[in-house]
């Protein structure tokens, strides 16, 4: 089975920032992503106790390398200052590149 190299961008951020992330993705014509709620600890303290809005969410996006840099740049620029947020990039392989 032939596998093709693409990128996986993972953003862990506060739940109320999810909308912003997805808007940025849409702006770059990306409509495929996976999300799930998580808890965590970091510079902004323990997150996940208390109200649901104070939990975190992970947003995972498989994408081709060419879009990655712009998206990472925009998220960094617009969101690092005000939101609890961590992002990282992974090298992965997929079967159907045309999907991403």
């Amino acid at each position, binding site marked *: 089975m032939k596998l093709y190299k693409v990128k996986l961008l993972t953003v862990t951020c506060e739940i*109320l920032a999810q909308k912003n992330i997805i808007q940025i993705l849409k702006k770059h014509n990306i409509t495929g992503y996976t999300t799930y709620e998580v808890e965590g600890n970091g510079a902004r303290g323990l997150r996940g*106790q208390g*109200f649901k*809005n104070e939990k975190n969410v992970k947003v995972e996006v498989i994408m081709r390398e060419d879009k990655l840099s712009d998206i990472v740049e925009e998220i960094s620029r617009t969101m690092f200052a*005000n939101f609890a947020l961590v992002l990282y990039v992974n090298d992965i392989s997929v079967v159907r590149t045309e999907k991403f």
Partner: protein
Amino acid sequence: MEVLQLIQSNLLTPIILFFLFGIIAARIKSDLKIPEAISEFLPIYLLAAIGLHGGIEMRNAGFENMLIPMLVAIGISLLFTLNHYQILRRLGKFNLFDSYALASTYGAVGAVTFSVGLSFLKNQGVTSEGYLAAILAVLEPISFIMAIFLTNMAVAKQIRAKKQSFTNDDVSDIEIGIQETKTKLSQVLHESITGKAIVILLGCIVIGYIIGEEGFSSIKIVFDEMFTGAIVIFMIEMGIIAGQRLGDLKKVGAFLIAFAIIMPTFNGIIGVLVATTMGLSLGGAVLFGLLLASASFIAAPAILRHAIPEAKPSLYITSALGITFPYNIIILLPIMFIVSSIAHDVEGSIDLFNYITWN
């Protein structure tokens, strides 16, 4: 009954005791927790019950008299929000963003506080006007919209000022800024109005109005008789979250702590007196005051995080839930009840000055 006595007897009701219990559980670092699904469901349930109750009352008693109290509530709410801003920005030296965020948090209303108020009145055997639920729904977004509007105006102004000092030929950025502000405002407006709290509240007012007492009978056990039991369970979780936040009080600072107690007292008592003047009943005036005294701690973060992301949620959530909420339901509610009793007595028999001595 005297104030202290009423505070004390209020302190010993299940609602308050379970809240205090939650605080203690959090402070001793117990792992006690109401599962998320339950504590997400309970506010929906409480708002549905409040709405149905309000709608049924409105069907029984009519709502012709609703218009003036509602407009007055909106007006006062906006005035109070501006007032909060001035106090926070000038006296409290908070930055623009935190000031507006806090101003609107205290200008907005708390549905949970309102539930507790309803239960308190029930316990005192006092009724209230059903249309107050409708006022609750309308007040929800008002102060947010105003605060966000003003924040964005202020930011746009700052940008403009900065631009003009650099170059004079390029104003497109400012236009973009203003454009963005408009987009944000319309988003927030939509988010507020379609927010689950308002939607369930208004929806249930309408349903309650349509079905009336008779249609309500088949669901009365769930939406009326279980009401206090449900609040009590929710109060455990509120207590736990408030307890977890107590550690953040130092971040909040002395000024904001004082603000979180004095402001609601001022707003609430004004509210009671204004409501009495407008002819609301003893209980209605208490709830009207409570609306103005309460701060929003569930709806606020959801809206402010998007609208004013620069503001620190630890400030507005902690002060609203950790200080104002307990103060309101434990101490201010009985105080407002006494104030309303006196004010209503006055109206009836001009007995104000004798009241405190003789009663």
